[in-house]
């Protein structure tokens, strides 16, 4: 037919991998040139604490050596992505690079000083909890095809309800009320987007603004005057016997408060539910191809309602963390966008509870890192440091554009004809 030379098929240029690679190379340069410390300085990480049963020695790292090696590894990952494209390794490379970057920062900031590694990881887990719970709420919604921008508002409502009812009736009642209030906002979202088919983004934004306005008003007008309404007793950490005594792992995982255990249990349960049970399978079918589910006798509307309400309750529980899990007091807009970060974690974790938990831990680490770095007196202004979790969000979401695949029916109301 044609004897001319066949042109080679065009090589698909993987822009995402190239951009991510370029960014990593840039970060490597930053580490190599800006994070300077004397060659003989040492960063000390304390693992055991004074009253531990088993004592482990300190971990010491030569600061400059560590940052140099980190820069080299980062540059290698970046170059590889830039030149060869990442394919399915892009996400993993990005995650590894973020962890290395954070470690390099930490080692540099600690040069010549010492820091408690255990305390930092403990803080990481604690700070990952609201993000993981927000992500879980997002997953429950989006797996059935409903976008839940309102997670932020649900967190805030949970935090508010936790403080108010926790002050009135005690911590457990506070948690239950937080979950109920979260569920009510879930129901509201469900009515708006499922029954009345309001645009899902708009409905979510409306709920966020409503909750923000309402809680801010009450806290400035009512709580300011009746302080006893906003003075709950937070849940304390309790150590799980034996497991809690393991060095490093014990304090990080087994000596925490109710919310940490709750989040871990919920993540496990929802993984089992979504991927190993009959109703989980049906839920996912509703999020992917509602019409197919409908023809097989699965009630799309009911399934969506149930999951959106459950998501609201999970988010309400996550919101209670802000008050009952830490200070016991509600402040205006105290969730600071953690709900949105949770949605980023959901995407980064590819709509899988375990993935979302891992992503939440990265954000939690960024969060606790900025806290530690500001204590360590680094030359970076604290305002910049407190941007860390948000910068991590932007990098992660930008690095994933076009790659993560959400449930197919997301954002579309189901209309039976």
């Amino acid at each position, binding site marked *: *037919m*044609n004897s001319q030379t*066949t*042109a080679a*098929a*065009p090589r*698909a*240029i*993987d822009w995402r991998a190239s951009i991510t690679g370029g960014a990593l190379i840039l970060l490597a340069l930053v580490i190599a040139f800006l994070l300077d410390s004397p060659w003989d300085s040492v960063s000390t990480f304390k693992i055991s604490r004074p009253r531990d049963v088993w004592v482990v020695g300190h971990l010491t790292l030569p600061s400059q050596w560590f940052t140099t090696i980190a820069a080299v590894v980062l540059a290698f990952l970046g170059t590889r992505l830039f030149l060869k494209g990442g394919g399915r390794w892009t996400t993993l490379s990005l995650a590894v690079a973020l962890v290395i970057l954070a470690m390099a920062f930490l080692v540099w900031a600690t040069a010549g000083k010492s820091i408690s590694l255990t305390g930092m990881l403990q803080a990481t887990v604690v700070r990952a909890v609201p993000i993981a719970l927000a992500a879980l709420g997002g997953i429950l919604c989006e797996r059935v095809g409903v976008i839940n921008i309102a997670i932020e508002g649900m967190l805030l409502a949970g935090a508010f309800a936790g403080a108010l009812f926790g002050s009135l009736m005690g911590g457990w009642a506070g948690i239950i009320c937080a979950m109920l209030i979260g569920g009510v906002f879930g129901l509201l979202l469900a009515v708006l987007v499922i029954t009345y088919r309001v645009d899902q983004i708009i409905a979510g934004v409306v709920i966020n603004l409503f909750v923000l306005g309402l809680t801010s008003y009450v806290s400035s007008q009512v709580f300011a005057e009746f302080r006893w309404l906003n003075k709950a007793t937070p849940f304390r950490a309790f150590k799980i016997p034996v497991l809690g005594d393991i060095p490093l792992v014990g304090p990080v995982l087994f000596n925490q408060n109710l919310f940490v255990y709750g989040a871990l249990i919920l993540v496990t349960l929802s993984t089992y539910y979504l991927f*190993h*049970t*009959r*109703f*989980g*399978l*049906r839920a*996912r*079918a509703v999020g*992917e*191809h509602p*019409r*197919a*589910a409908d*023809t*097989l*006798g*699965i009630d799309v509307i009911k399934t969506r309602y149930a999951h959106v309400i459950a998501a609201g309750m999970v988010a309400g529980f996550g919101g209670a963390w802000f008050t009952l899990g830490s200070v016991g007091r509600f402040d205006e807009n105290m969730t600071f966008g953690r709900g949105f970060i949770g949605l980023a974690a959901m995407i980064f974790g590819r709509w899988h509870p375990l993935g979302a938990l891992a992503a939440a831990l990265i954000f939690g680490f960024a969060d606790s890192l900025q806290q530690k770095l500001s204590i360590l007196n680094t030359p970076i202004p604290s305002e910049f440091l407190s941007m860390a979790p948000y910068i991590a969000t932007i990098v992660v979401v930008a690095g994933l554009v*076009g790659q993560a695949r959400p449930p*197919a029916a997301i954002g579309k109301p189901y209309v039976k004809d």
Partner: protein
Amino acid sequence: MNIEIRGISKRFGPVQANQDIDLDIRAGEVLGLLGENGAGKSTLMNVLSGLYRPDSGDIIIDGTAVSFDGPGDSIAAGIGMVHQHFMLVPVFSVVENVILGVEPTGAADYLDLDAARAQVQQINDSYGMEVPSDALIEDLPVGIQQRVEILKVLFRSADVLILDEPTAVLTPQEVEAFFGIVRALRDAGKAIVFITHKLHEILEIADRVSVLRQGRIVGNGVPSEFSEADLAEMMVGRPVSFSVGREAATPGQPVLELADVSLLDAGLEARLQSISMTVRAGEIVGVAGVQGNGQTELVEAITGLASVNAGRVTFNGIDITATSVRQRHRMGIAHIPEDRLKSGMVAGFTVAENMVLNRYYDERVARGVVIDWSRAEEQAAAACLKFDVRTPSVFLGAGSLSGGNQQKMVVARELERDVRLVVASQPTRGVDVGSIEFIHQQLMACRDAGNAVLIISSELDEILDLSDRIYVMFEGRVTAEFDNQDSCADRNAIGLAMAGVNRTEAA
């Protein structure tokens, strides 16, 4: 299981979709249900599958009258429907799709996939379906996906299978394999209703045939008593000529040339890979292939709706690779889009408004920035007459026309001007037989007037009837080229090329 349908009528507003229909569905038999688009086949089957309630009439299963309140009742009664558009979750595995809704479970609601897999495998083996039970649906070819639909129905232990236009998406070879499965099902005692508008399929597979026209049963019988012409006459209501009466083409200069054209989608997947083809003046070139193998993208590349990532598109010797859609249109490229409701017309506009969509800006109807509606309406009325668009008035909403008249309106708009190249994509999809004949004649007339015509169709018969030359596309490549001057291109070889079996025949 036997089903008797007695006196079923169903009306939608002014449209009598089914009127007084009697039908017998018997175990161990394939009932062919033949009818044109809009004859009422789908309505009847939706009544049977519980989606619609009939206005009057009875469904009698094994001697007992039943009434269905929803699809659930019909499934419980043993009736399974295989929809024309598959109802499968693309990211689920075969087993997950099959069991969805009737999942075997253990303690704590645990999905017992092993038990399900064994059961699916058993059904698989007994009808020779060879479906890999753990593959994801999105990785499977359409023909296998269809078998998954059948598995789904059988898993729910259906005794009656309704197959709605099952061969529309299959290559000729896949159709053969599919018929094998249908026969195996019939021999196992299942009752099968085979809905189609393809006559030769009825003659090949059906044990009995019923013909529907305008909501009524107009004929019943055993296929061997009928010829294709008899069936066609029953279906359409008048004698139909099958061949277009094509004279030998006298191809002239190349009008359209594609050289190594490649196109990537948003996810960087190649949709077109190094496509090279030529369409000369005075010939009709057909592009055959199973839907979704790059035909849509090919049309977009030629008409300018998508910009190509590599290669060159030439029109009358001029490089138009970077030329805008409107420029190409004005150079004389006419485009009949594959989906008229999506991209061929505006259903909410009147006929006249639809007719100016490609000329509202130029001297034919525009005076400066104002549209001269009286001229536009005159032109529309004239074009309607010339192209047999049957509408009481050009002020009628285009959405209320029949599919055939809508399509003829689109054809009229595109061809009622000086064209050099016609790109017709699925030109007769969802159109009645009379309009099909008319549109085919128009395309032939275009060729005979010395223009180049490119027809993209998933109906192989249409391609074989009209084309002087045939390209076959598979997964974004041209896998073969056939000469069809005397309408005798090898159907079988085309089928193989459609399935990606590489065997290029020199033109």
